[in-house]
């Protein structure tokens, strides 16, 4: 099945690994992600922090491109893009707002936009297909699913599971055999884009999440958000300093975890790009696979 796809800027930069693994997993599930032509940045937090209409205009241009392609559904891997695109679509329902936004665009935007959902939600619709294609079970691996703050909130906008306790990622990974712990900070904020201007904010919030993950004894945190992944992985040393400790917690994308189950190599999934090496997790998986392999652990 073909999907209109909005990768988001980080897919071309800091979260190339997310993009690689997303593409790999979707390919394996016969989901074809077609980038909408000439897409631009959704404006992320800075745009709506400065002005709602500017933010909506940046989003509306993308929604308009997708609408003109005839798309019914637009997928994005990034929760921040998802949030902004959905917010813009929602606000554009108000005629006065729509008019103010249209004034900023080259041409008035299409009257109706395709619904924007997360790639994760689209993958979940292919869950049966996924289960069938698992080549290497994740059995024996203990993971914490971390959604970040934007995926499920605000609830009326995102319509993504229970806003306090989403379980979609757990369901997908458990279907691949992983042991999913109850992770109470799964929707807590990691500190978002404050890493640059206000490091203490990110260090403190990410540190709490890492600290709990360590105490729960998980092999890795699994996330769906490029910014969360960067804060928890690349900035893990900064968080460690704030907590007067050294964390060593791999933080991988859920698509990387799914990709491992589907039999992709580390390189195909971009696992070599992690700042905090996932070697421990991968060795554990290797060990687990070798043990039951004799009995034909592959399906």
């Amino acid at each position, binding site marked *: 099945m073909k999907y209109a796809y909005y990768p988001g800027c980080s897919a071309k930069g800091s979260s190339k690994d997310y993009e690689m693994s997303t593409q790999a997993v979707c390919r394996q599930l016969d989901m074809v992600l077609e980038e909408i032509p000439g897409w631009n940045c959704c404006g992320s937090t800075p745009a709506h922090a400065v002005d709602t209409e500017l933010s909506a205009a940046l989003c509306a241009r993308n929604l308009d491109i997708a609408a003109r392609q005839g798309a019914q559904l637009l997928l994005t891997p990034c929760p921040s893009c998802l949030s902004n695109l959905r917010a813009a679509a929602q606000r554009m329902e108000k005629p006065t707002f729509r008019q103010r936004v249209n004034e900023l665009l080259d041409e008035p935007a299409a009257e109706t936009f395709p619904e924007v959902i997360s790639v994760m939600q689209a993958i979940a619709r292919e869950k049966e297909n996924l289960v069938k294609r698992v080549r290497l079970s994740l059995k024996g691996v203990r993971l914490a699913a971390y959604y970040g703050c934007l995926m499920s909130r605000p609830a009326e906008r995102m319509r993504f599971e229970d806003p*306090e306790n989403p379980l979609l990622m757990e369901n997908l990974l458990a279907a691949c055999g992983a042991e999913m712990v109850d992770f*109470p900070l799964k929707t807590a904020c990691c500190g978002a884009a404050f890493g640059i201007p206000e490091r203490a904010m990110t260090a403190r919030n990410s540190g709490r999440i890492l600290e709990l993950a*360590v*105490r*729960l004894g998980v092999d890795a945190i699994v996330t769906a958000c490029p910014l969360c992944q960067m804060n928890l992985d690349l900035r893990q040393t900064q968080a460690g300093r704030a907590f007067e400790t050294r964390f060593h917690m791999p933080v991988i994308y859920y698509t990387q975890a799914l990709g491992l189950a589907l039999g992709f190599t580390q390189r195909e999934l971009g696992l070599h790009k992690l700042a905090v090496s996932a070697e421990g997790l991968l060795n554990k998986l290797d060990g687990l696979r070798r043990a039951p392999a004799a009995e034909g652990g592959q399906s």
Partner: protein
Amino acid sequence: MRIGVFVCHCGSNIGGTVDCARVAALARDFPDVAYATDPMYTCAEPGQAAIEEAIHEYRLDGVVVASCSPRMHEPTFRRTVERAGLNRYMFEMANIREHVSWIGKDKEANTNKAAELVRLAVEKLRHNLPLAASQFDVNKRVLVIGGGVAGIQAALDCAEGGIPVVLVEREATIGGKMAKLDKTFPTVDCSACILGPKMVDVAQHPKITLYACAEVEEISGYVGNFTVKIRKRATYVDWSKCTGCGACTEKCPAKKTPDAFNEHTGTTTAINIAFPQAIPKKAVINAQYCRQLTKGKCGVCAKVCPTGAINYAMQEEIVSENVGAIVAATGYDLMDWRVYQEYGGGVYPDVITSLQYERLLSASGPTGGHVLRPSDGKEPQTVVFVQCVGSRDRSIGRPYCSGFCCMYTAKQAILTKDHIPGAQTFVFYMDIRAPGKMYDEFVRRASEEYGTEYIRGRVSQIYPDGQGRLVVKGADTLLGEQVEIKADLVVLAVGIEASKGAVNLAEKLRISYDNHGFFMESHVKLRPVETNTAGVFLAGVCQGAKDIPASVAQGSAAAAKVLTLFARDKLESDPQIAQVDIRRCVACGKCLRCCPFGAIKETEFRGETKAQVIATVCQGCGLCTSTCPQGAIQLQHATDNQILAEVNALCQC
């Protein structure tokens, strides 16, 4: 006809936005109006006396009062005109307060509308006929639904007043929520010790018939003559033989049965007696967990029972009782707090409800009265209480205050210190509601003498810290800071909701209920025990949140209402009911099918089928009159002619 019109000022309630003198002046020109005036307070003693005087002086044979809603004072003024010798149905009321002065600001428009309403009432009155009530016998027995403290009090007071009582309890024992409590505020006396004797009184009172494990299935009839069908669930134990010795519960092998009486803080056996002071003290088998009933093999209880009371083949049974009045005392349940996913949604064993905490405090509870936390059986050192969980929360559709949580939380904080002197206790609260006698003093004792730290703010999240304790993230709004506590045990003061099945019962009783399933009283202030269905009274939390003293008081009040009702041997039926003109009736049967009360039956008249209204059953709703294609059924005091007279008057205004 000579009609008198009284346009009430109601102080400034009506007079403020209606020119009452002008309305009275206009009324003087209406047909048949012999006298019109505008008193300041018509319902007051001088106001009523003035009506009586005017009736005599002006030889009035009908009276219109333009004032408040008839729901408020129609009975008052009907008595007034009756005292002056008129038939009470030769009186009409125009509502110019709720329908005019309270809702409009334009004095001229209000005055015109008030005059029009008076005109309507006059026209109606011109077509009124004197009506007379008939009398019927009263069955002086009462049904009390629910055996919590309110129902117990109502039952005992009625029985002491000489009235036979049928008490129906859904659970296996009476006592309700109070039986589960360890101590009660503000005296900290033992709940079981003060309730227990009352429960025993119920069991031993010759006038009280108790059905436990039973529910009301169907109610028909009317005030003075209700017929009630009661469904007795199968207990698989013949209670006439069971002595409550407990031999069966000791030997029962199904020991993992959920213990509802202990709020699931522990487990029990499939055959079980809820607690040592249970009334009736009889064993009951939980069919879902009994090995004999689920797997067909076991039979241990039958073997050990010294009286041969076990009967695995027992079936449920319907019994019928005739009563003249009903007291609903169905109490409450805790709302399902698992909607609060941010508090773990029920997943964390050491986040418990206040009622569960009562069972941990109670000597008859699963821990024998030692406060031990569920996860590891250790004594908690830091206990955090969170108030208003599921109360005053619009986001989950529960805007109301549960009334008594502030008080029991203070009590539980005090008891915690009694049990574990070294413990630290914190209470997160929004407002402390302690308006009862000695209540505020009690709360202050909790903080001053027992060192309870009260923190003003809600709790945003509770989660395990991964090291055996719980992180409680809250705010201290007085400090203006975020606060965090590592707790060993968190007790949620979970809000109340109407008892499960309350709405269903209300439908059977034909009484109203509010948005949240609490039963509606007839008047919030002046008729707090009555309902809009004659002969049905309310007691306890089924009507709204209240604590034990208030529930007991309302139980007694309901009993007083029953005794008042039964003080008369005969009751008067309301003559405002449907009546069939048999000359016009074509026996089409439409009225029979549309009547919600089953008040119409077929009868033979000179070989022809005709409809007939059962006077005592008809509630005067008027459905049949608007359904009858022949206009053969007329509702007395609201006949077609009377209503058309009003419409005509309105069209001519």
